[in-house]
């Protein structure tokens, strides 16, 4: 436990140690970015029954490095209508805060580097987490300016959307971490990690047991709101509306090419790594070993914690990728409504509930179990009642429609929403040739007799259903053996 650094330990390093740490943080972020890109492509490929990149380097793990190098040798285009200085600076403005934000993340306890004891963290300050927030506030500029300076319609629309989205979800993110500060009593990241150390002794009416002290467990609502908010904040799927490919091409960086584009890409992934690291720090115990490992005494000293920390970050990155592989993109109105009408009020109510419970338990000197029963339950009951009433009220039309459908009406919603849909000009829209495209009541369902090609990984190359038109991703064997057929 005495490895745990305090605020007084920072700002004491000799200059070369500071240099090593700076370069270390920079290199870590670049490597994590390269890794995250390959990791994402491989994981998504696996989720989609593909192989993913497997050509460059061992098992394809150098693919993103090759891509990055390739980008450097692409033509750098400055659009004719671009606002030159701003177009030039926007990638820089996007990149710098992305790197700076990571500086307050604690990577480990005090370690010894070349004989010097030093915390494995670049800086820490009483305002710790606020540095991350300030940097994410600055990161919006890179996007807004990049889109604006391109002098093109898609990027401008993309950047406006993106900025509106980032600021909306920044509110939810800012509110979600208030409860963490409330519990930890500090905003310094190393202090928050230290506050999650050890077991959390719970007292439930005399029944004592040790619970985990991760804030993800103690403050689950905060954690969930944080996770959702940072996905919106980093413009990742399913909230990737600013670069919805089918609508806005690439969003704010449509006009960018070469290394300028690479910088935007880098900034996006560095931001992803940073919010993952912040999630690990604020909610998942930071660099401290998770439970089964923490039984081992040496788990929280030396360089081991760096490993636990990186594992937590990779786990968080995996969730990002998982979401992308699973969820369809939201509609813009759904997205904004969710941010402003669900996340923000939930976070506010949660903060007040937590603060009330904490204050009552402190003032009345109650045990945690008593507080949960006397304060937590009533608050939860009130919140649930309000939500129930609200949702019943807002779902009234749907309920009426459902009742009507049960009473025999085949398509209850159709008459009220049937404005003439303008089909795109002279475009010929042939009727669908095959497949029962729609269910009764409107929404389409996949055809029931859908034939799924077998997984290329499975040993059996047989189609799933008899008479399947598609067999496998394999090449058709040539009638005569050729030697030059199977490259590329």
């Amino acid at each position, binding site marked *: 436990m005495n490895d745990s650094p305090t605020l007084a330990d920072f700002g004491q390093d000799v200059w070369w140690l500071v240099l090593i740490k*700076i370069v270390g943080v920079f290199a870590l972020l670049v490597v994590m970015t390269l890794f995250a890109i390959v990791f994402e492509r491989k994981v998504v490929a696996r989720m989609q029954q593909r192989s993913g990149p497997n050509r460059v380097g061992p098992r394809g793990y150098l693919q993103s490095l090759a891509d990055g190098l390739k980008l450097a040798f692409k*033509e750098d285009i400055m659009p004719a209508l671009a606002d030159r200085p701003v177009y030039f600076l926007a990638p820089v403005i996007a990149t710098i805060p992305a790197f700076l934000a990571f500086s307050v993340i604690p990577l480990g306890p005090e370690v010894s580097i070349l004989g010097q004891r030093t915390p494995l963290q670049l800086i820490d300050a009483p305002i710790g987490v606020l540095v991350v927030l300030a940097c994410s506030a600055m990161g919006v500029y890179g996007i807004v300016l990049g889109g604006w300076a391109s002098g093109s319609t898609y990027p401008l629309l993309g950047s406006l959307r993106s900025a*509106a989205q980032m600021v909306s979800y920044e509110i939810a993110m800012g509110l979600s971490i208030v409860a963490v500060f409330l519990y930890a009593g500090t905003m310094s990241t190393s202090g928050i990690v230290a506050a999650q150390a050890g077991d959390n002794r719970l007292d439930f009416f005399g029944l004592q047991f040790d619970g985990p002290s991760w804030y993800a467990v103690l403050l689950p609502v905060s954690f969930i709101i944080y996770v959702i908010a940072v996905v919106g904040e980093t413009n990742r799927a399913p909230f990737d509306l600013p670069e919805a490919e089918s609508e806005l091409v690439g969003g704010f960086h449509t006009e960018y090419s*070469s290394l300028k584009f690479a*910088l935007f890409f880098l900034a996006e992934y560095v931001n992803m790594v940073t919010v993952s690291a912040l999630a690990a720090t604020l909610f998942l115990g930071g660099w401290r070993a998770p439970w089964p490992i923490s039984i081992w005494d040496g788990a929280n000293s030396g360089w081991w914690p760096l490993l636990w920390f990186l594992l937590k970050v990779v786990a968080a990155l995996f969730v990002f990728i998982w979401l992308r592989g699973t969820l369809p993109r939201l509609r813009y109105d759904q997205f904004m409504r969710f941010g402003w009408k669900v996340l923000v009020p939930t976070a*506010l109510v949660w903060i007040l509930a937590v603060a009330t419970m904490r204050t009552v338990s402190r003032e009345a000197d109650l045990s945690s179990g008593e507080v949960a029963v006397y304060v937590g339950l009533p608050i939860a009951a009130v919140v649930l009642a309000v939500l129930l009433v609200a949702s019943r009220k807002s779902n009234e039309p749907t309920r009426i429609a459902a009742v009507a459908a049960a009473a025999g009406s085949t398509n209850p919603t159709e008459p009220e929403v049937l404005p003439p849909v303008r089909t795109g000009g002279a475009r010929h829209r042939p009727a669908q040739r095959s497949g029962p495209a729609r269910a009764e009541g409107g929404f389409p369902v996949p055809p029931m007799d859908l034939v799924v090609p077998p997984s290329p990984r499975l040993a059996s190359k047989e189609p799933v259903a008899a008479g399947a038109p598609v067999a496998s991703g394999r090449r058709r064997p040539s009638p005569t053996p050729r030697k030059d057929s199977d490259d590329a």
Partner: protein
Amino acid sequence: MLATYAPLVGLFVLAAGFALFSVTAAPFIGPRRYNSAKLEAYECGIEPVDQPLSGGRFPIKYYLTAMLFIVFDIEIVFLYPWAVANDQLGVFGLVEMVVFIATVFIAYAYVWRRGGLEWD
């Protein structure tokens, strides 16, 4: 005091140097093959309209979002010191924060009721 933040300056210099080097070097490393079509705004192959130049109009909705963002940002900024010092402030601190949040909630409820949070 300043020694605490000195590494931040170092990282800033490194990141800025890297980024500036990249954007400056890009035109020299890559090939340059002039083509007027490349310099036009990309609009998926159709003739580009120079909307942003001539002052394209955008939904005023974004203004409202930014304004609400400021309102809540300021609220959050007040919440942070309150949360950190919560143990010292006691019941009184809780009550005043409830009053504060309730007051801001009036603004929020007003905007909600008027339909300011709806996107169409």
